[in-house]
């Protein structure tokens, strides 16, 4: 059993995404989440971690680390996904308005779904990011009886 809060830091690389998913999935299960809610938590955190692995650091940056901080309360599971990369303007974190907008087949590219997933699958999401100061994404899921 894990004693919350817990922090887990590793290399921010796409190759570790499956391990991070397993880690979060087990933690969500331990906190009593199952079924659809567990799937949503795993996927939302995976999207945040994927963003870090793909976008947070410039090539050659030796600070390429990602930290997951998980905290459980009687009401909710809260996960912070933290990097120390180049950061960005919070306006960049505004997702598409809808899946329908994403699914228009005349689009030139199909980006932006990850942010939509984080907002849709979690009960709360906040982004704290500034240029060259890294990014902290907070994802919170309430237990159904507490929602």
């Amino acid at each position: 059993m894990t004693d919350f809060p817990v922090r887990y830091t590793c290399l921010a690389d796409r190759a570790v995404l499956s391990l991070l998913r397993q880690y979060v999935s087990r933690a969500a299960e331990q906190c009593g989440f199952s079924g659809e809610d567990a799937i949503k938590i795993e996927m939302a955190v995976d999207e945040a971690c994927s963003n870090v692995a793909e976008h947070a650091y410039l090539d050659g940056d030796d600070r390429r680390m990602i930290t997951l901080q998980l905290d459980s309360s009687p009401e909710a599971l809260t996960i912070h996904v933290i990097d120390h990369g180049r950061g960005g303007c919070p306006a960049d974190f505004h997702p598409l308005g809808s899946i329908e907008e994403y699914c228009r087949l005349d689009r030139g590219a199909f980006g932006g779904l990850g942010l939509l997933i984080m907002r849709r699958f979690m009960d709360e999401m906040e982004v704290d990011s500034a240029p060259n100061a890294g990014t902290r994404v907070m994802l919170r899921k309430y237990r159904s009886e507490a929602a």
Partner: protein
Amino acid sequence: MKPFSIDVTQESSASGAIVEVHVSGFLDAHTVNTFDGRMEEELERDVNRFLLNFEELSYISSAGIGSLMVLLQQVRRKGGELVILNPQPKVYAVLDLLGFTKIFHFASDRASAMQALS
């Protein structure tokens, strides 16, 4: 958990070639470039009908869904179609929660998938 792999075979039908793509493991930001590259090779051979066998796909992320959208866009531009065969409950649940079960065609057995593509 199965590791990521792609196995591509081709079948002939009365109306032309159908490419069957068997994907195992997970389709995420780490594996999607390999998947994209393999699909691009098939599209360059002028194939426009794809059967994506997801029986052994255990996870799909937004990167994987985006890749499927690009493939769907390309095959439809070429007058073709794409059918997803027998996705695992977790993969189907994600696609359904996000509304993609209205976008993609699904089949629960190979015969009906082949029929939908013929």
